[in-house]
């Protein structure tokens, strides 16, 4: 008994070490004064300072934020609408649509990216829309963000007392008033949580942005990828560390919001 619990915790720690060691190394080396190599030459914040004056980084950051904010806003609206339609209005085929909702989550990024590229190509040929660039990246991101928002919002809807809706109607509220004053405020933590997840996914995405981007629409992950080809610098470590910090914070906030009680 005692031995097996000791063994279990040792294994658990080993797995954690394996998971987090590479990330920890990147964080540590982002503070290393050495320009190259694996040698520790003292702590510095130089690399972070340099990031803020690097024009390429600035423009990639701008693109990433524009993409993340725009796509998240669109996905939040569309995902919530989808969740509401599924929960309240669709009687038939609900299970099917429900299952289909999860598919984009499991489809490999690369498959989605290639599919989007093909789709955008067709649209360009037929309708002269979707020139590769910011628009296509945003459209691509919205595609994989919607299921995440919809699933989080649906979970919250399912936990809501259906009598609340009836109580509001009984008290004289029109359909719009019920939505505006009861449904939406109660769903808001779920919508924000879903949007936080979607924001993180957009910020971290490389594959879709790489495939559906064009000149002048380089996001941060794509910038990192292209810089690495010229050699990994501590500046890249610093940038990666910041990107990671933002994602972790957004995810933690999303989890806290989801845990809030509906009733």
């Amino acid at each position, binding site marked *: 008994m005692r031995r097996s619990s000791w063994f279990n915790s040792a294994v658990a720690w080993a797995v954690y070490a394996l998971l987090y060691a590479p990330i920890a190394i990147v964080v540590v080396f982002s503070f290393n004064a050495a320009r190259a190599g694996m040698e520790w030459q003292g702590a510095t914040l130089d690399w972070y300072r340099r990031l803020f004056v690097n024009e390429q980084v600035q423009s990639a950051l701008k693109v990433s934020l524009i993409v993340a904010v725009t796509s998240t806003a669109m996905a939040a609206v569309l995902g919530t609408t989808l969740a509401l339609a599924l929960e309240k209005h669709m009687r038939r085929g609900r299970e099917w649509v429900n299952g289909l909702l999860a598919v984009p989550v499991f489809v490999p990024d690369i498959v989605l990216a290639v599919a989007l590229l093909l789709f955008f190509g067709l649209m360009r040929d037929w309708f002269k829309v979707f020139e590769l660039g910011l628009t296509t990246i945003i459209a691509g991101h919205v595609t994989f963000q919607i299921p995440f928002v919809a699933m989080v919002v649906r979970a919250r809807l399912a936990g809501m*007392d259906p*009598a*609340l809706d*009836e*109580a*509001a*109607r*009984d*008290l*004289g*509220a*029109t359909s719009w*008033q019920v939505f505006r*004053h*009861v449904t939406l*405020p*109660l769903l808001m933590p779920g919508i924000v949580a879903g949007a936080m997840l979607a924001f993180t996914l957009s910020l971290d995405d490389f594959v879709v942005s790489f495939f559906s981007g064009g000149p002048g629409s380089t996001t941060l992950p794509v910038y990192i990828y292209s810089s690495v080809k010229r050699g990994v610098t501590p500046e890249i470590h610093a940038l990666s560390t910041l990107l990671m910090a933002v994602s972790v914070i957004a995810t933690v906030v999303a989890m806290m919001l989801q845990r809030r*009680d*509906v*009733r």
Partner: protein
Amino acid sequence: MQQVPEATASRKSSDHLGAGIEGVGLVRAFGAFRALDGVSVSIRPGEFFSILGPSGCGKTTLLRVIAGLDSADAGSLSIDGEEMLAIPANKRPVNTVFQSYALFPHLTVRDNVSFGLRMKGLSPGEVAPRVERAMELVEIGPMAGRKPAQLSGGQKQRVALARAIVNEPRVLLLDEPLAALDLRLRRQLQTELRSLQRRLGMTFVHVTHDQEEALAMSDRIAVMNAGRIVQVASGRELYERPKNRFVAQFLGACNLIPGTVTARAGNVLTVATNVGPLEVRAGHGTLPASSQVTLAIRPERVRLNPEVPGRNSFSAELRDAMFTGAETQFTLSVAEMALRAVLASESVGAGSLRPGSAVVVDLPASALIVLED
């Protein structure tokens, strides 16, 4: 609950705020199951009307149809003479107190109570005094700033009540409003609801499966079973003159004695039963000789060892005596039949009524009820 301010009370009572409800042939089917199977009901303006029945009898469906939260497949429903079935819930002159209270968890008590008035677009100046008055009426003023999660069950119930009556509906619908509360609180709120209804003059339609609650609060009670209304009457009449076995057994305990009519002399029937020949007062129905009937008698109307034996007196054996406080319950066997009797413990002598002893049981003709089935 608080005294209603003088002006409000007098205005309400003179206006006859309550509306009458007329339901005719209402049908509501869920697949093959008919929750309402041709319900016709007439509720008078300003009365406290209870719909009583076992779970699944359709009582909640009837309430939801009146509220407009559920639709009827056939029939008609009017409130104050105005046809209602085509009118959506938010436009009907009724408000509901839900079984689960259904308070809005994201709003404070005050915002919950003001919800209906705000949705109607009343100005904050009009809303505030009415909300304060309603909260005062059910004594939740001190909780105004709290969220529903911070309230006890009884307080939530009061908020739900205030949220409904603040709109001054013509009809207040109550769906098992006290079911979730403990017994003591339930008894207290029964009294309060009853006096609130008298003061406001609204029509209250109250759904319950608790017969004591219905008897204690209502002007009239409709007993429902299997999607139909079985009998509508005052509580006392239902108890003393139940129409059939279902009503007799659903409201209080009852001895049922099957028999055959052997003779009729004016207003008096003679019925042959396992207990012996019983003389019964006939109702208005015509019961020819040799028709099968069921007689009912309440345990507290059964007399033991009467000073003067009557025509319906028989010798019996006392099987069991159970002391339950104010009352003592007896089980007797007369011929092959088991009968229950209840006596005030005070009147039971210390010695004579012991299990195994022989007694004389009297079933007074005035206490025997002839049931329809």
